[in-house]
């Protein structure tokens, strides 16, 4: 048994002391597997290090009446200059174990072949993970501390790890940290949530998970992972990681995955949509969203999602088959609508996805929503954002939204833009408007009209030739158009 009483841990930082753990108490008996949920930086790893004895608490006690492992993670505890064999020899010496049998086990389990006799620094991260796990299995502890072990490696390796831990060592005690709530649900028999330094214990996973979601919800305002808005390409790139680092995003996709696994397609769609509302440029979950809408027979919606996924960089051949399938289900046998996959280049030349279309609709048409079939058709037709923009400007809805008569009705409110949208637009037109990093005239950009005028003020747009021409043509047809006076134009330019 491990008895943890009133654990408290303070870290000294340059900004004063930080309380990481406070009054953490629990017992862990043989056969108990405690799962720990918590936000990024909640102190989960710290708690495990304290229990392992690698780090000392500021106050409180930990009594270990059984042997406790070091925190098993897929990374460290190696000397990179040494070979795999030397590392095994070192661990064997430290824990007074038979080196020969350990070596045999690791050779068999890690499948590193001759690499085992090469320095660890020459290993790939996958090879390191295999070695780390194999080494941690050579010593038979009574209690294993597992920190984020589900994160690396291929499926087969995962299965073998799970077999070693949960089948062969089912009688041991464990403390498991993972970002994958599903992993914790499936492999633990006690659960807890760590938040604000306190550890709250639960006997049921659902209760723990509900508490965890509340914690994440409450932290909504804090430390949102940063998406770069330097350019559209950068925005797509940084969204991939930022989304996965955001607990709110992860919770939604986690619940989406669970619903998908139990074939509850409607809930899954809802969860994926909620996740994508937070990070509309996260490409992989557009594919998932496509799958679960397809299963519900919403083929037009599924096609939009698949096309968005491809436009944001999911390899075309991964979604092409699905697009052809949903197109055929919409009784359009000709698969001539080709998939517009992402190509690097000027922003205007990127293929458009649903979030781009919606951005344009709000700015150019002052429309919060666009009919689903029309969305699908626009994404089918237009291979580039530039082409889409030009087409939407040529549409009469643009004229209706931005004609002077419309504005004089005092309907400015409808075109007002929120800061997210402004940021996105600035990164679309970064080459001409200077990007969001330069002092952005947010005040000037209070409404969609302002943006149109701002863009009109440049006669050409570097990365958006078609859109620029469409704007100029529209302005020419409307003498006196939206530009009140030359002074205003100059002021903006």
């Amino acid at each position, binding site marked *: 048994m491990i008895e943890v009483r009133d654990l408290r841990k303070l870290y000294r930082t340059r900004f004063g002391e930080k309380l990481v753990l406070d009054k953490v108490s629990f017992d862990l008996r043989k056969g108990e597997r405690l799962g720990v949920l918590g936000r990024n930086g909640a102190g989960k790893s710290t708690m495990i290090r304290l229990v392992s*004895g*690698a*780090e*000392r608490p500021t106050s409180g006690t930990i009594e270990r*009446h059984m042997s406790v492992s070091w925190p098993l993670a897929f990374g460290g*505890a190696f000397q990179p200059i*040494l070979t795999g064999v030397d590392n095994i020899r070192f661990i064997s010496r*430290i*824990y*007074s174990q038979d080196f020969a049998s350990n070596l045999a086990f690791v050779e068999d389990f890690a499948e590193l072949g001759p690499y085992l006799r090469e320095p660890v620094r020459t290993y790939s991260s996958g090879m390191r993970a295999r070695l780390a796990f194999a080494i941690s299995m050579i010593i038979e502890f009574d209690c294993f501390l597992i920190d984020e072990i589900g994160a690396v490696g291929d499926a087969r390796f995962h299965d073998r790890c799970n077999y070693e831990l949960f089948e062969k060592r089912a009688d041991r005690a464990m403390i498991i940290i993972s970002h994958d709530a599903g992993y914790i649900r499936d492999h633990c028999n006690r659960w807890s949530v760590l938040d604000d330094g306190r550890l709250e214990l639960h006997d049921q996973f659902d209760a723990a998970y509900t508490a965890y979601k509340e914690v994440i919800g409450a932290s909504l305002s804090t430390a949102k992972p940063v998406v770069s808005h330097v350019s559209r390409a950068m925005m797509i790139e940084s969204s991939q990681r930022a989304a996965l680092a955001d607990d709110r995003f992860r919770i939604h996709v986690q619940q989406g995955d669970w619903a998908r696994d139990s074939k509850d397609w409607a809930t899954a769609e809802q969860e994926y949509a909620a996740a994508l509302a937070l990070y509309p440029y996260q490409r992989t979950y557009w594919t998932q969203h496509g799958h679960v809408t397809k299963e519900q027979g919403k083929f037009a919606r599924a096609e939009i999602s698949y096309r968005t996924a491809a436009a944001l960089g999911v390899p075309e051949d991964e979604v092409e088959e699905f697009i052809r399938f949903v197109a055929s289900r919409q009784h359009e046998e000709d698969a001539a609508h080709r998939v517009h996959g992402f190509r690097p280049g000027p922003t205007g030349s990127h293929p458009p996805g649903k979030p781009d279309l919606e951005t344009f609709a709000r700015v150019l048409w002052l429309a919060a929503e666009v009919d689903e079939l029309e969305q699908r058709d626009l994404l089918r037709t237009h291979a580039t954002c530039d082409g889409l923009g030009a087409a939407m400007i040529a549409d009469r809805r643009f004229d209706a939204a931005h004609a002077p008569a419309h504005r004089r009705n005092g309907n400015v409110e409808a075109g007002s833009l929120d800061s997210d949208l402004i940021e996105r637009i600035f990164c679309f037109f970064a080459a001409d408007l200077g990007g969001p990093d330069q002092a952005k005239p947010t005040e000037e950009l209070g409404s969609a009209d302002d943006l149109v005028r701002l863009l009109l003020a440049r006669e050409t747009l570097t990365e958006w030739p078609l859109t620029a021409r469409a704007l100029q043509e529209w302005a020419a047809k409307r003498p006196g158009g939206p530009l009140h006076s030359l002074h205003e134009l100059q002021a903006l330019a």
Partner: protein
Amino acid sequence: MTAVSDRSSLRESSRVQLRVLGALLIREMLTRYGRHNIGFLWLFVEPMLFTLGVTALWTATKSVHGSSLPIVAFALTGYSSVLLWRNMPGRCIGALWANLALMYHRNIKVLDIYVARLLLEFGGATISFTVLSIAFISIGWLAPPEDFLKVAAGWLLIAWFGAALAIALGALSHESELVDKLWHPASYLIFPLSGSAFMVDALPPFAQQIVLYIPMVHGVELVREGYFGSQARAHYDLSYLIPVTLALSFVALLLVNGVARRVVPE
């Protein structure tokens, strides 16, 4: 599993500690010298090269050292002891940062990491000193030591002082990078004052008083007395050196304890 059980007697604990130290020693040797060319022989070949180089230089320039001792003997005893007290802190500063990953293993303590490196450094310097002494004696450049025990005592006292200094600086360096930055110039400046390049007896009386505040000087003088006997006219005071080193050791252990309390594994 009793092998890794947490409840253990003092004897059991010291057995674990010795095992850990042994494993760390071998690991240090492998990481530092590897298995290429002459491998761990570098452990003492490197200090030997240093000492030989300095001996050659001092002989060539006929350095003034204020005594009638042969220059080879003077250089050997002097520079070897410099290697002891200067390299030990050099190896311990930053040692913990380089080994943070090891802190995941509960049985490995912060002090173990320092002690393993110190043992290695002490071993290297001692082997180098011994081998060179025997070599010089056998070709007749050097007379055998007059009092072997005094040489050993002086040598061990310098090592003890060096180790205490090394552990203290090593622990401090974990808290502040300044230690690393300052130790290099400091060790250069202390070198000419440490008694290796002169005999205390050759200094004017007021300088002798000042120089004898530097602990290493006492050790070097003791080694030289052991080697050359009355020929050297050594000045040292063990009732100064031992309490100072004892106090420094105490401070060093306190510092290590403080670091161990706060250390965060990688």
